[in-house]
């Protein structure tokens, strides 16, 4: 660890106060951004991620981190009070952000002319140019098709706006007004953090504040060291999962993670992961982010009140094979990396969960499903609806997964009445899909079905996954349902199936798009689930009578109450025949090419 060799120490109480104050500041950043921004993706769905760093660019509080030193280095240390940096190019920022839609803002924080830290936020812009509305072409082969790439530049230099940069950025978007407001929201959020850090320096003294930051890093590191020692086995454990396809007809793509431990250091090795894809599902991930993701998962499973920061980074060793899905070579297309991003988490849960019950979560809906509808309305006004959908949240040690909820943190659904007020669509149905939650002692969450009736001519883009490879179950839980997409042409009744990754599908008024997301895997043996709860799920329309009998061994009366005697008999017989349930239920056999390896 690179802590400053300062001899001052901070008393434990002051340290805890500074920790609380930094946490408050970080939530204040969210509050400011959400209030000011215009795009529903940031505001209603919270696709923005803040952090506060120390003077060396190490994240003290937040959810991402690690990219600041490379930006400072790029400017040769020419970092001044009043400077604000912005960028969106994953390749020019070592994967700090992973597609061009994320605009990242960063500013240095000075206290009495001394650099004391940085604040930074990135947020998802609705459009940054490129070949399709929304800037995430499902069939892109290079990043050149995915919109304007901005390397780290100063949008404010010593407090002065660089109008040229701003104009170029906005001129390359289909939604310039929205992007302008959203960018200003990100800047306002960073400035808020700057003010708070300066106040802390005033209140406790700069030296105390900076030492406290180091101590917060050290404290989290120690917590992580204990957890790694206790829960990561020295013997390697591997887990493999698959991304359906890359939008160009290639796939499925294999991802393999092997975890082991050497002393205090946990090794996460992605060797065995497929080579980079031709299509845009490559996930250019920063090594530090890998470490953070593993660390957050451990912290959330063992003690959610531990502060996340970069203190523990030297306790992880990461292997990302060059030219693979997780370390693609420029100029590989990146825009739809969320499938790979999520499968990264699925592999992590599978490998860690093999030996540690507290860490065993099933697989979820496995991506961030998008629906984009754009066109020109009767008044000749351009419209672009972009909505993120949700699906089944995994069955977990604590209980059932949630039906049609967000796997991603703090995201929420855009109200249907909001969408219908602003866009020419009418939603006909919005409900969980029966039987799509993987059966288990704790049932997996169900996927959702949303039916859009389109009221104007236009085009539709869809991004989803887990259409082929279902979300797996764990500890005896079964796999969940897959996703699917359908179109029903105006006047027709028969739906036509369309791919889960598609762009510029031409639609006419009256056409319907049926968007079904995947469910999630179950946790634990479904034969152990209380029969009354299974019966309730049937009455709620979440589980069919057939699945109740087949997967849960629950026999129901005519009015959907559990027949306890018949259930006990069936469950006994089923258990005898089955034996111990398998640790994982994939519901998928990989093609020969993959299986042979």
């Amino acid at each position, binding site marked *: 660890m690179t802590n400053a060799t300062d001899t001052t120490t901070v008393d434990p*109480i002051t340290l805890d106060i500074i920790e609380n104050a930094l946490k408050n500041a970080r939530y*204040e950043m969210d509050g400011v951004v959400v209030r000011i921004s*215009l795009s529903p993706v940031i505001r*209603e769905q919270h696709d923005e991620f803040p952090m506060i760093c120390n003077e060396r660019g190490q994240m003290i509080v937040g959810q991402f981190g690690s990219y600041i030193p490379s930006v400072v280095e790029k400017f040769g240390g020419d970092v001044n009070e009043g400077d604000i940096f912005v960028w969106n190019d994953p390749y020019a920022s070592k994967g700090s952000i992973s597609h061009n839609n994320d605009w990242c803002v960063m500013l240095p924080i000075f206290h009495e002319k001394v650099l004391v830290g940085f604040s930074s936020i990135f947020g998802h812009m609705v459009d940054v140019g490129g070949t399709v509305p929304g800037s995430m072409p499902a069939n892109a082969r290079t990043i050149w098709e995915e919109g304007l790439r901005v390397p780290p530049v100063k949008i404010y230099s010593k407090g002065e706006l660089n109008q040229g940069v701003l104009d170029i950025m906005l001129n390359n978007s289909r939604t310039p007004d929205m992007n302008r407001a959203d960018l200003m929201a990100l800047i306002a959020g960073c400035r808020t953090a700057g003010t708070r850090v300066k106040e802390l320096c005033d209140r406790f003294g700069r030296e105390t504040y900076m030492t406290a930051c180091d101590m917060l890093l050290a404290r989290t590191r120690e*917590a992580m060291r204990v957890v790694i020692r206790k829960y990561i086995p020295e013997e390697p454990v591997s887990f493999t999962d698959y991304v359906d396809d890359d939008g160009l007809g290639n796939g499925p793509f294999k991802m393999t993670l092997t975890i082991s431990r050497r002393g205090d250091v946990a090794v996460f090795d992605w060797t065995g992961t497929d080579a980079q894809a031709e299509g845009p599902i490559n996930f250019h991930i920063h090594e530090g982010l890998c470490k953070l993701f593993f660390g957050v998962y451990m912290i959330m499973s063992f003690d959610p009140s531990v502060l996340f920061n970069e203190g523990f980074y030297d306790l992880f060793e990461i292997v990302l094979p060059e030219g693979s899905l997780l370390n693609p070579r420029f100029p590989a297309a990146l825009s739809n990396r969320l499938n790979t991003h999520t499968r990264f988490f699925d592999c992590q849960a599978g490998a860690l969960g093999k030996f540690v019950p507290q860490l065993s979560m099933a697989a979820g809906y496995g991506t961030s499903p998008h629906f984009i509808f754009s066109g020109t309305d009767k008044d000749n006004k351009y419209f672009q609806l972009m909505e993120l959908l949700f699906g089944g949240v995994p069955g977990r040690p604590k209980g059932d997964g949630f039906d049609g909820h967000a796997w991603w943190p703090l995201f929420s659904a855009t109200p249907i*009445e909001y969408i219908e007020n602003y866009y020419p669509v009418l939603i006909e149905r919005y409900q969980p899909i029966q039987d799509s939650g993987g059966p288990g002692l704790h049932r997996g969450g169900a996927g959702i079905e949303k039916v859009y009736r389109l009221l104007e001519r236009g085009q539709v883009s869809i991004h989803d996954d887990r259409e082929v490879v279902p979300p797996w179950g764990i500890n005896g839980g079964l796999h969940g349902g897959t996703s699917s997409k359908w179109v029903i042409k105006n006047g027709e009744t028969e739906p036509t199936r369309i791919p889960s990754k598609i762009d510029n599908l031409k639609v006419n008024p009256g056409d319907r798009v049926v968007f079904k997301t995947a469910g999630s895997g179950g946790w634990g043996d479904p034969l152990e689930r209380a029969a009354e709860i299974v019966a309730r799920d049937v009455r709620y329309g979440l589980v069919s009578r057939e699945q109740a009998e087949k997967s849960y061994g629950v026999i129901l009366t005519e009015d959907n109450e559990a027949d306890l005697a018949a259930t006990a008999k069936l469950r006994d017989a089923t258990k005898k025949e089955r034996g111990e349930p398998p640790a994982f239920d994939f519901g998928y056999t990989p093609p020969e090419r993959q299986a042979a390896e």
Partner: protein
Amino acid sequence: MRLGVDVGGTFTDLLLHDEKGRRTFQAKTPSTPEDQSIGVVEGVKLICEKAGISPADIDLILHGTTVATNAVLEGKGSRVGLLVTEGFEYTLHLAKAWTPGPLFGWINMEKPDPLASLADTRGIPERMNARGEVVRELDVAAATALIDDLCSSGIEALTISLMHSYANAAHERQLRDIVAQRFPDIPVSLSSEILPEFREYDRAITTVMNDYVRPIMKRYLSRIEDRLADNGVTARLHIVRSDGGLMSAAAASERPVHTVLSGPAGGVTSTMMLSRRSGFPKLLAFDMGGTSTDVAVIIDGEATISRSTEVGMFPAKVPTLDVRSVGAGGGSIADVSELTGSLRVGPRSAGARPGPVSYGRGGTEPAVSDANVVLGYLPPVLLGGEMKLDVEGARKAVANVGQQIGLSPEDAAKGIIDIANEVMLGALRVITVQRGLDPREFGLVAFGGAGPLHGNAMAELLGCYPVLVPPNPGVLCALGFLEADFRNEFVQTYIRSTVGLDPAEVWSRFAELEAKAQTWLTEQEVTEADASITYSLDLRYEQQGFEVAVPVSAADVHNKGALTQTLADFHDIHERLYGVRFTVPVELVAMRVVARGATEPVEESFAEAASTDVKAAIIETRPGYFNGAWQDTVHYDRNRLGVGSRVEGPAIIRQYDTTTVLLPAHYAEIDAHGNILIWPVSKGN
């Protein structure tokens, strides 16, 4: 005579105001959670005895109640049926699809069952669009069959919440008529009446919440009216709304969702009153109780009204006084994290049982109150000698925590208090600096059982002076009720761009709302002299998700001119609140009309008996831990500190219902209204 009644978790506080005699009387009786009305009636009897009056002398009873809040928090409401548009049966089940942060926040998420069960939800064939146009006609035959099935299944109340009903309520009303004809005994709430605003989940859950607590509230209110009548009380009963206004008992039975924050409203209302009376226009209300602390901002004697709040995990979109609550109070437990060795305080609370270690009721983990005991801030005997504290037990428990992090018992106790203060500071920051307000321009009113213990320290951190401790901080809520106004809001959602909008569309809707407001004022028997009506527009930049309420003058509303001034005001307010203004079009979201009926202020004359000779008020001198050392600290009896007295810190000021800590380098003075004002010595005087 008017009587304010505040039912808290532990005690029911009453305050009687005799307008003619210019006297007040207070009483306190144990709350009776199994049926709050028993405790209320006991209290009424007690206070009549104290004041030497007959129950029939009381004209008006103003009652703040937690009946609705508790029903929701404890999941003990009624069985509610729900009619929604077909295809949206799972609106409550899917809720906002939200899971908490950070990444993997869902691992630990807990989610209560919806307030209306899926088994009691039916989808009705019908549909409106966003403009209120019928897209699918209501299928009356199918709807009737569904209603028959649901209403004969044992539901106790019924909510009807259809898509876009805020824009056209025709289908909701048709369904209500069908129900009224066939099931006249089932109470029905329409979402278009409870919350005529867009966002289907918020509207549905708020309306369902209304029905969830309605039968309980109705039974409670009829019980309390019966019990009062049995005891010779002939007074009218009014209930305090979450926004600090009053509503008749009959209105509260119909719309109990408006009482979900009835409890804390009293404290804020009385802070408003203190502000007007004491001449401090900007005050922070700091109400620190056993498990949580409520804070609010008062500017020019007024509190902000928020349009939404949360009751447990459920949002409720009803006007509430903008109160921020954090899980830190006198009962918050301190412990040390196993993984990081950091000291944490709350949100776990010792509650009333077992309570802090020092209460000697079996508690073993140290709470914030115990830390106050260890440092000598809380005297060993509380409540006028009725309650002895276990000082040794508290010290042992705090020492145990200190040992784990290498601190002396004193420093550990100081640490527990400092961390609790920091958590509460976060809440105060959210309501001030985060909204562009400078806390240094505010004073801080400390009340609730623990508020005056921590108020001085909070002021030192935020720089907000004076700290104001009212004469009877324990009954401040009841006092607030006595001064509450009648208040109701009338809202119409109307989402349109202001570009090219005919202002007549706005003014005609204001006229309709104003007519409703007038009718309501008449129903509440508010005299013309006491009545007032204010107007505002909810505006935002096109496609923004949050609205800003922009006041519109009565003159503008009645002149029916252009919207120019209102729009200019909007840009200014947005810039003040969020630091930016945009050049994108402004959008209209809703019109609001607020009707008020003013209430006479409580006037009290103070006995000038107590002298300004503070020596006469000294109880004893005990050790107190300040600035890292034990110091001889004088304890004063507040009742013997007369108007104009001045006490130097450090000192402890004791009274029946609370204890005030005065820190070193501060002094306290008693103002003409009997308030303690705490100032830093550096401020002069």
